[in-house]
């Protein structure tokens, strides 16, 4: 007894077989009456042809009924599973279910979610497989586990034999599965197919991809197409099962990080939170609940958030003690909850150490700089300046400094330059002020080095900026740059009151290379560059081509910026923030990424205890650090939930130490836009697959356990139609020359 893929269609379609009989009966009822004279000939004809006509008509009726039955059967897809069927097809079936458990599958609507739908489909497939007579095998693999397969991990079920009670076991196993917080896409899951046991010669393998088919995961289908083509070529069938429904309202916190500013205990730090609206409609008065170290802060409110747009808001936090601090931002519940929360760990030192190298023994420039950065008294900037001579650079480690300033430095030794370059390359900030002691040849030859050195431009020499009584424009024209953005829009900025008398001119015809990172961020009244920045390694360099101190020199006064003008203090603090920013990278880690901790074994024992979020000690894992070259590394491979992970270390002296890491979900995974089946067909053109909605899977997968007769039925149908056409032609009226009528 064959099974059917679409058995319900069979019950709908089979009554259609009676259609020709029905049409015949209707025609009989509709016959017309003719009073006929020449009955004699008609009766003679009827007597002569009655048998052949009846035979042809019965045969025709039968063929037409057969044709309809063939169409119905073909659509219902009968499958023979007996030994005859096995001669044509496979006798065992291996169902491979790739279950999407990325957090977009938590999309909720009505009383269900995409993940629940996927689990229901899996349960139905398992129950159907259990009912089959032929051997059935079942493999279940979650997307989030797929990547681990390559590292020797195991699927949730691997080629498990389907026997009596399997459906119950499967249901229980599915009940224990929860949505992960990863953004695992179908790539890894499809690639994992290669790690499954090879398909046997008489095995029928079917791969079901139970997913939500979000646009973000199918933007670039090249890799997917490649993986699916491999599956196809391996002789397995591919069924894509869409378990999600429509687009629902979803907001997500897509970023939470410190904005510019000094990281120091007791100094207010500005944080930035970005919320994105992935839903189809605008949202008003979006409230972001903020906490620092578990203490609630005033909520950040976004008045309106149009669909598809992001909004960034800043809020201050104040940490009075040094160390790692946690900041979290949270939104109200919506279709996808996982992306409504985001955490950040902020490293707050006691103070930000800054080194000021002054070339003048009087250190007048350093004085003004250090005063601007650390005014003293009741005001704390969190910056701790250290004024030294150039030799400090080669004699001391510079790692502890966030920023180094060179003020009026005439020249540096090569070792000092090397130390300085290494410092900046590693992410340190370098601010350079010139002055009467600075020598252009040294800067050009040693620091600029044709664009390869620290200094961003070649210098010509000290130049006077003539006073123009007629020109009322300010001496400094600041560009659109974070250092000067605080002055933007101020009509009577103190910056406008700065008078610059003298500066170092750039070499004639010098202009920044558009391809390089060199940018002029402020110019003088005569359009000569005054402040120039460049990226050097991971760090930043800003050069101010005038003197920091507003004092008289042998060349005369250079400027009056630092004298009684508050804009100097503001600009220097902003410059310090800007230069120090690379020292505080946004260490955002995504769920699913391994947590690798570099361990200094001279200070710590080589064991690390990783505690996952939720302070559930039961979930903690102790990992032995492994040697990786000269360093030691402790790795936590599985980070499946978002939040703050703790790495608990033990110092050599036995005292504990904790490092915290914030793990957040992928910002894009909350984008619930779906790829349409037609788009999918376009992107997967040339690939054989079937696309289903989760609710549409009413078919019984038993059909795939045997030989599907659809194709044979198609040929049979063609044969029946051919014979029917021939017979219909033979039995129908065709004009022929008339005899005896003239």
């Amino acid at each position, binding site marked *: 007894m064959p099974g059917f893929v679409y058995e319900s269609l069979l019950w709908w379609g089979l009554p259609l077989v009676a259609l020709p009989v029905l049409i015949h009966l209707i*025609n*009989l009822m*509709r*016959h*017309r*009456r*003719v*009073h*006929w*004279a*020449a*009955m*004699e*000939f*008609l*009766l*003679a*004809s*009827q007597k*002569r*042809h009655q048998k052949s*006509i009846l035979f*042809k*008509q019965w045969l025709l009726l039968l063929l037409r009924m057969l044709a309809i039955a063939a169409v119905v059967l073909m659509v219902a897809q009968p499958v023979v599973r007996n030994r005859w069927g096995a001669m044509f097809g496979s006798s065992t079936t291996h169902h491979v279910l790739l279950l999407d458990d990325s957090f977009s599958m938590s999309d909720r609507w009505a009383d269900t979610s995409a993940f629940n739908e996927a689990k229901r489909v899996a349960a139905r497939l398992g129950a159907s497989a259990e009912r089959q007579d032929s051997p059935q095998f079942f493999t279940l693999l979650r997307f989030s586990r797929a990547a681990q397969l390559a590292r020797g991990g195991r699927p949730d079920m691997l080629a498990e034999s389907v026997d009596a009670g399997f459906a119950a076991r499967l249901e229980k196993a599915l009940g224990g599965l929860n949505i992960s917080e990863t953004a695992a896409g179908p790539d890894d899951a499809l690639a994992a197919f290669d790690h499954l046991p090879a398909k046997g010669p008489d095995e029928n393998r079917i791969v079901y991809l139970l997913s939500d088919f979000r646009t973000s995961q199918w933007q670039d289908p090249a890799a997917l197409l490649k993986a699916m083509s491999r599956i196809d070529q391996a002789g397995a069938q591919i069924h894509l099962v869409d378990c999600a429904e429509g687009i629902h309202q979803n907001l997500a916190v897509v970023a939470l990080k410190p904005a510019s500013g000094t990281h120091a205990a007791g100094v207010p730090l500005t944080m930035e939170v970005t919320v994105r609206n992935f839903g189809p409609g605008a949202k008003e008065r979006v409230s972001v609940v903020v906490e620092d170290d578990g203490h609630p802060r005033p909520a950040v409110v976004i008045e309106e958030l149009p669909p598809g747009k992001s909004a960034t808001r800043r809020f201050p936090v104040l940490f009075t003690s040094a160390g790692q601090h946690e900041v979290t931002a949270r939104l109200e519940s919506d279709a996808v909850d996982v992306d409504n929360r985001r955490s950040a760990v902020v490293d707050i030192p006691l103070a930000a150490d800054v080194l000021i190298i002054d070339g003048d023994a009087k250190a007048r420039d350093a004085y003004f700089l250090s005063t601007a950065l650390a005014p003293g008294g009741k005001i704390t900037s969190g910056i701790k300046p250290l004024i030294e001579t150039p030799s400090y650079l080669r004699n001391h480690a510079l790692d502890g400094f966030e920023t180094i300033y060179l003020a009026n430095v005439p020249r540096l030794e090569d070792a000092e330059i090397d130390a300085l370059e290494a410092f900046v390359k590693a992410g340190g900030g370098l601010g350079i002020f010139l002055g009467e002691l600075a020598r252009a040849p040294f800067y050009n030859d040693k620091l600029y080095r044709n664009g390869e050195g620290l200094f961003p431009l070649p210098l010509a020499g000290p130049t006077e900026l003539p006073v123009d009584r007629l020109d009322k424009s300010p001496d400094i024209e600041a560009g659109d740059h974070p250092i000067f953005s605080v002055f933007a829009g101020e009509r009577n900025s103190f910056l406008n009151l700065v008078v610059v008398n003298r500066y170092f001119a750039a070499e004639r015809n010098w202009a920044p290379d558009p391809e390089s990172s060199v940018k002029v961020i402020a110019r003088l009244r005569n359009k000569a560059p005054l402040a120039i920045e460049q990226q050097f390694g991971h760090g930043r360099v800003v050069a101010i081509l005038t003197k920091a101190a507003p004092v008289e020199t042998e060349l005369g006064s250079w400027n009056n910026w630092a004298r009684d003008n508050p804009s100097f203090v503001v600009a220097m603090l902003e410059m310090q923030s800007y230069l120090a920013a690379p020292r505080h990278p946004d260490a955002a880690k995504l769920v699913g990424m391994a947590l690798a901790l570099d361990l200094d074994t001279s200070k710590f024992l080589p064991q690390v205890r990783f505690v996952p979020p939720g302070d559930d000690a039961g979930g903690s894992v102790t990992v032995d650090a492994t040697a990786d070259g000269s360093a030691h590394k402790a790795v936590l491979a599985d980070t499946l939930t978002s939040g703050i992970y703790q790495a608990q270390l033990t110092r050599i002296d036995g005292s504990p130490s904790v490092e915290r890491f914030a793990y957040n979900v992928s910002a894009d995974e909350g984008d619930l836009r779906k790829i349409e089946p037609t788009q999918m067909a376009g992107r997967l053109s040339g690939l054989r697959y079937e696309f289903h909605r989760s609710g549409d899977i009413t078919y019984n997968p038993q059909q795939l356990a045997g030989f599907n007769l659809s194709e044979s039925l198609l040929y049979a149908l063609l044969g029946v139609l051919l014979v029917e056409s021939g017979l219909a032609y033979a*039995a*129908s*009226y065709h004009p*022929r020359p*008339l*005899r*005896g*009528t*003239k």
Partner: protein
Amino acid sequence: MPASKRFLRPEAIARIARLDLRARLVVEGFLSGIHRSPRFGQSVEFLQHRQYAPGDDLRHVDWKVWAKQDRYYVKQFEEDTNLRATLLVDVSGSMRYGSGEMDKYEYGATLAACLAYLLLRQQDAVGLVSFDESIRVKVPQRTKRGHLEAIVQGLAAGEPREKTDLFGILRGAAEAYPRRGLMVLISDLLVNRDGLFKGLKLLRQQGHDVVVFHVLDDEELEFSFSGPTRFEGLELDERLSCNPRALRDGYLDALGQYLDEVRIGCSRDSIDYVLFRTSQPLEAPLSAFLSYRQAARRS
């Protein structure tokens, strides 16, 4: 509708009038020549002049007119004949069938009326026998012009009825008109063939010249029905539900055999046979037949 208008419709009269002009010579020639009249050429009444056309007999040229007008005219004469024609018209139930404008009965009756009109115009004696399974109306042979009305009335009186028994009719006609004459049978001949041929043979044996005008409908000849149809016999009490297309070939074969049989039977007894389709204009087959008769006479 009066019977005279029914069977001598204006359009039919117009057609016949044209037919008259065109076939006059032929009709008069063949009808007058059918019988060896002992008064042939003796009783001639001048009718009209006609312009000479090549082929006209020079004996008929009016030389007086030529002398006066220098034009050739031939004199035409109205000739008395002694032809006695009997129109045997089938009015049985089978003649009621018709798929076109006229059924077979109407067509046959019109044909009979036209013939009577033509014969009476040349002062031949025309009689009528309308019949089904028995003789319904018998109109004696007369030569008077007013006799046409009686013929037409006779045609009208014979409403189609019942079954045809042709042998009895023809035998009755042979007995009723023992003098030799022209017997014109107008029927669909859907009868027993033995009776038909026996009857016709009887007429021939009595010295009658017999002409059979076989009237059939287009559908009877072509049988182009389609779709489920229930045929109910007009004379036979038979019913048949069928797909006509399936039976068409057999039907046409049987019909062809029947027509062949009739043609052969007629020619065997030297009976002129003409098949009329009810869709054909009357004059076309009539003039074809008249031409044929003329040619036969010449030979």
